[in-house]
C-alpha cells in the first residue's frame, strides 16, 4: 500500500470503525448473536431477499442509510481543520484522487459489500442473474457516487444539497439536563435515529406479536431493559461529550443532589418516545402501577450505564462488554420477579456511584 492510501486508511477508515465500534458491535450482536443458528437465519434471509423485489428494495434502503452515515462521517473528517493537510492529495491526477477516494469508500462500506457478495453468490447459485446484477450495480453506483462526493469535498468545493442530511432549524432554550439530548440530536443524529428505530421496533414487535396467556410483567420488563440497553453506545458518546465540552459544569456551584436530578431528567428525555409508545400496550400488557416499574427500570438502567462510566476509564469495547455483563446479571434477577424494588435499588446505586465518582473522575489520555 502506498503512503497516501496508508494515511487515508489510518485517518479516515480506522477512525471510522473506532468511532462506530459500538454501532458495529451492536449490529453484529443483533444480526449474528441473537438468531440461532446464525448461518441458517442469514441463508433464509438472503433467499427471502432474492424472492421478493420489495424485500430487495428494503435492503437497498438500508444500505443507502448506512452509506449516508459513511458519507457524513468522511465529509466531516475531510473538512475538519485537523485534516486540512489532506488537501495535498489533490496534487495527484484527478483519476488517482478518485481512485483513492474509491478506496476509502470501499473500506468504510465494507460490511455492506461483504453482505452483498453473499447475496450475489447465492443469487448466481440459484441462477437468479438479474438479482445478482441489480445488487452489483446498486453497490457499484453507490461506491462511485460516494467517491465523487469525497473528491469534491477534498477539493473544498461546495457539495450538492443531496449529500447533506436535512437539518431542522429548531432553537429552543437548552437547560443543562437537555444538553446531552441536543448533543445526540445535532452531533450523533444517525446514531440516535438507529437507536430509536431499533428500540421502538423492539417494543412494537413485542406488543404486536406476543400474546400473553396470563398477566406477567417480566417479558415486557426484559424488552424494556433491552430497549434501554440499545442506548448504551449513545450513553458512551454522551459521556465523552460531557467530558470534552461540558467540563466547565463541574466548576459551577451546583449541589450534588441537583446534578443527580439532572442526570435522571436527562435519561428521561432520551427514553421519552419509549415511555409514550409503551401506552399502546395498555391494559393488556401492564397495569398503571407496573407502568411506573417499566419507566423506572429504563431510567435506572440508563443512569447506571452513565454512572458506570465514571468509575474507570472505559473504551467503547470494554464498556459494551460491561453493559452486556450488567444486562445478563439483571436478566437473572428479573426472573425471580423482584418487582419495583429492583429498579429502585438500581437507581439508588447509580446515584450513589454518580455522586461518589463525579468529582473524582479524570479522563486518562
Amino acid at each position, binding site marked *: 500500500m502506498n503512503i497516501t492510501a496508508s494515511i487515508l486508511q489510518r485517518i479516515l477508515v480506522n477512525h471510522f470503525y473506532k468511532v462506530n465500534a459500538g454501532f458495529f458491535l451492536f449490529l453484529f450482536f443483533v444480526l449474528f448473536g441473537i438468531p440461532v443458528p446464525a448461518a441458517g437465519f442469514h441463508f433464509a434471509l438472503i433467499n427471502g431477499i432474492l424472492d421478493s423485489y420489495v424485500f430487495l428494495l428494503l435492503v437497498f434502503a438500508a444500505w443507502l442509510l448506512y452509506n449516508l452515515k459513511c458519507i457524513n462521517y468522511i465529509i466531516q473528517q475531510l473538512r475538519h481543520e485537523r485534516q486540512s493537510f489532506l488537501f495535498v492529495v489533490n496534487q495527484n491526477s484527478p483519476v488517482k484522487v478518485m481512485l483513492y477516494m474509491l478506496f476509502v469508500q470501499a473500506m468504510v462500506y465494507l460490511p455492506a459489500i461483504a453482505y452483498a457478495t453473499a447475496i450475489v453468490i447465492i443469487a448466481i447459485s440459484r441462477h437468479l442473474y438479474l438479482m445478482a446484477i441489480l445488487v452489483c450495480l446498486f453497490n457499484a453506483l453507490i461506491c462511485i457516487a460516494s467517491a465523487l462526493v469525497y473528491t469534491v469535498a477534498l477539493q473544498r468545493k461546495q457539495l450538492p444539497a443531496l449529500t447533506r442530511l436535512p437539518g431542522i432549524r429548531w432553537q429552543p432554550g437548552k437547560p443543562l439536563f437537555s444538553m446531552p439530548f441536543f448533543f445526540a440530536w445535532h452531533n450523533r443524529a444517525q446514531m440516535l435515529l438507529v437507536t430509536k428505530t431499533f428500540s421502538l421496533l423492539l417494543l412494537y414487535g413485542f406488543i404486536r406479536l406476543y400474546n400473553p396467556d396470563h398477566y406477567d410483567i417480566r417479558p415486557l420488563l426484559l424488552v424494556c431493559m433491552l430497549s434501554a440497553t440499545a442506548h448504551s453506545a449513545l450513553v458512551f458518546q454522551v459521556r465523552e461529550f460531557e467530558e470534552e465540552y461540558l*467540563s466547565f459544569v463541574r466548576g459551577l456551584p451546583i449541589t450534588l443532589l441537583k446534578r443527580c436530578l439532572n442526570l435522571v431528567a436527562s435519561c428521561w428525555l432520551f427514553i421519552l418516545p419509549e415511555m409514550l409508545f409503551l401506552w399502546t400496550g395498555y391494559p393488556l400488557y401492564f397495569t398503571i402501577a407496573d407502568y411506573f416499574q417499566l419507566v423506572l427500570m429504563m431510567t435506572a438502567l440508563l443512569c447506571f450505564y452513565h454512572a458506570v462510566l465514571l468509575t474507570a476509564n472505559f473504551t467503547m469495547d470494554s464498556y459494551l462488554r460491561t453493559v452486556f455483563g450488567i444486562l445478563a446479571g439483571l436478566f437473572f434477577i428479573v426472573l425471580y420477579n423482584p418487582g419495583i424494588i429492583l429498579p429502585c435499588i438500581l437507581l439508588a446505586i447509580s446515584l450513589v456511584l454518580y455522586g461518589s465518582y463525579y468529582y473524582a473522575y479524570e479522563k486518562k489520555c
Partner: protein
Amino acid sequence: MLHFENVQKEYGNFLALDIPTLTISKGICWLKGENGSGKTTLLKMVAGLHPFKGDILLNGLSIKKQRQAYLSQVSYAEAEPLYPSFITAEDLIKLYCQTKKSSIEAARDMLRQFNIHDDYKKPLGAYSSGMLKKLSLVLAFTGSPQLVLLDEPFITIDAEALETTCGIIMQHAAKGGSFIITSHQPVNSGQISFTNILVAENRTISSLSI
C-alpha cells in the same frame, strides 16, 4: 485568602504538582512558568475541575468539605474554551446566572462591552475562537466571584477586547475581587497592576514578592 494544604496532583504515576503549604493573599496575582510547568493544572485544581490530594481553602471554605459554597466564590476562564456548538451564548449566560445567582442584564452588558452581544442568540458553532474567548471571559466575571482564575486571557482577542478585559479586571479588583492570571505575554503595568507573582517550577508553586 487562598490556602493550599499538602496539595499533590498526580497524572497516573507522574507527580505533576506538590505544594506542601502555600498562602496567596488578596490582589491580582501573576502566575508565571514555562510550558508544562503546571500553571493550568493549578488553576483547574483551584477551580474544582481537577481532582487532587490535600485541600484548598478560599476564605476558610474548603473545596473538599464545602464545595458548593467554595465554587460560588470562584470563576475560571480557560485558555482555549470549548463549548457545545449547538448552544447559544444566551443558554450559557442563563446557566451561569442561574447557578451563580446573578443578573443576566449585567452579563449582557459585558457582552456589549466585548462587542459580541449581537450574536447573543446564535449557536456557538458560528463563533470565531476570539468570540468564544470573549464569551468565556464574560462568564468568568458573572456573579461577582471573590477569586477569578484567568488562563492566558490575552491570547486570541483583539486589541480593543484586551483593553476591555484589563478595564474589567481593574474594576473588579477595586471592588475587592482577586485574580490569578497566567500569561506568557508581557502585560503593560499601566493596564494591570499585579500585587503578587507566583512561579510554577520544579513541580511546585512558590511566591515572589514584587
